[in-house]
């Protein structure tokens, strides 16, 4: 009995502090968000009542702005997951194939990742609105003179470009580490057996880095759904709401529009469910294709 209470006390001393902060700032807000999602709380009023699933029904059937933000985000996620991984893997393979200047290229391609997303977005706003138009004027590259931020047709690409610029380096580092784990002997054996570089890459390298692929898909997928800063800094969701993403729609609903906290909470629960489902499916699928090294 005495031993048990002593064990409990030492558990409390060691785990207690972490648990306290975690409960206050993570657990309670998570549960709170789910709780408010079935209320009509407006943030200012102390009183609120339960409305069941009315918020969810409204978000999914009667809120074109939310649906548009959802579709815009999905489009962004698909494009980002593909391009970010393809580019990062390509860069990693190219850099790894070199004998000299490896470190130099790694440093340059990773550097944008150090700069905060919102600062990146401001820097690119300068490039899109000032540099490219002048560049088009002075050279013959007239296609550069577009309304990169003002025209929704192009601003999608601007958002993708800035996100890639910032994010590819991070994935490249993970792929580089994966590539370094591929045994040289395997590749040599494949070459001796008459495999060309593409075949070697397809049948030796790719399976050997399948764990890195799982991780990078997870990170890019997860990150892309949560995109906020780039859009906030570049277009602010505009013109109109044409480039609004889900996170921004939630932010606007809760903090800058009508303070419908309950309704905004329901939207945030929808976002969480989508991320949860998609990542669980992704991990199942890519894990199944993993090869034991």
């Amino acid at each position, binding site marked *: 009995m005495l031993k048990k209470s002593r064990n409990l006390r*030492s*558990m409390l001393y*060691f*785990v207690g*502090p*972490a*648990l306290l*902060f*975690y*409960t206050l*700032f*993570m657990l*309670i*807000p*998570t549960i*709170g*968000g789910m*709780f408010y999602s079935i209320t009509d709380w407006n943030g200012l009023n102390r009183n609120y009542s339960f409305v069941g699933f009315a918020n969810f029904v409204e978000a999914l059937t009667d809120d074109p702005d939310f649906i548009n933000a959802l579709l815009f985000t999905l489009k962004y996620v698909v494009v980002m997951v593909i391009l970010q991984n393809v580019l990062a893997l390509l860069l990693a393979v*190219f*850099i790894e*194939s*070199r004998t000299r200047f490896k470190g130099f290229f790694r*440093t340059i*391609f*990773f*550097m*944008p990742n*150090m*700069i*905060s997303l*919102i*600062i990146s977005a401001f*820097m690119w706003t*300068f490039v899109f609105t*000032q540099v490219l138009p*002048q*560049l088009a004027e002075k050279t013959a590259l007239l296609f550069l003179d577009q309304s990169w931020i003002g025209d929704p047709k192009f601003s999608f690409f601007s958002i993708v470009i800035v996100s890639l*610029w910032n994010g590819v380096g991070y994935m490249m580092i*993970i792929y580089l580490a994966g590539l370094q784990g591929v045994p040289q002997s395997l590749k040599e054996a494949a070459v001796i057996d008459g495999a060309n*570089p593409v075949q070697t890459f397809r049948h030796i390298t790719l399976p050997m880095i399948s*764990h890195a692929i799982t*991780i*990078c898909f997870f*990170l890019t997928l*997860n990150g892309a*759904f*949560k995109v906020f800063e780039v859009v906030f*800094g570049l277009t602010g969701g505009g013109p109109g709401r044409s480039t609004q993403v*889900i*996170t921004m729609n*939630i*932010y606007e609903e809760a903090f800058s529009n009508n303070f419908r*906290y309950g309704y*905004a*909470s329901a939207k*945030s*629960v929808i*976002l*969480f469910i989508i*991320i949860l489902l998609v990542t669980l499916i992704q991990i199942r699928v890519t894990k199944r294709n993993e090869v034991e090294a």
Partner: protein
Amino acid sequence: MKSSKLSSTIILIVLIIGAALAFFPIYMAIINSFKTQGEIFKNILSLPTQLHFENYSQAFAKIHLFNSVKNSVIVSVVGIGGILLFASMAGYKLSRTPGKLSSALFFLFIASMLVPFHSIMISLSRVTRTLDVQGSVFGLGLIYIGLGVNMAVFLYHGFVKGIPKELEESAHMDGCGEFQTFFRIILPLLLPITVTIGILDFLWIWNDFLLPLLMLTDVNKYTLILSTNMLFGEYNKEWSLILAALVLTAIPVVIIYAFFQRFIMEGITEGAVKG
């Protein structure tokens, strides 16, 4: 052999073009930050004819550089310090204790790892108002502890499994208490994973935007990123000033990058593989 030489040259060219594109926005920001507004509109691509440092002195004052950096440092130190200390203790204890309570607590910590910040920010803003930590730089650091311990507990928990138990047993024989054993013997052994977590959390907290935006309203308490965001909104189109501020904001991280590049890259790989 000839074709492999050719393809190696093509790869080199692709890499050089890619590197030039990656560096282009930074280069543009730097060279134009030394020009006057008129020079930017005339010759955006050329090097400045004369270095206008007054852009920098102006930006320096407008973003309250010293004060903003001080605030960012306080938030990072409180947040990272708290995460490392509390999560290492919890991760160690939970990893070493068998039983239902221990596994239930561990599960409780990692259950939230997929919850996006945007799903908690609304009720978090209410909780922090109730607890009166909103609007304070120190309080913001405390919030980061709560948001960051789940991942850190998870990583420490896994790392502790690789440390032999005999060390603690012999320390116990020598009459070391549990706390002494942890701080004198275990904590130093956790250094590799501590560096990893510290770096990942630094990059996250220092560069974070949305949480400070929601929590801080007083300009004197703004972090570096928030001050620059405010300047961007206020001096719209005054590019000479804005670019100088952007460069100033990027300098601290670039310095840290230059010194810790190897650790940062190792930290990312370690964190990714374990996570």
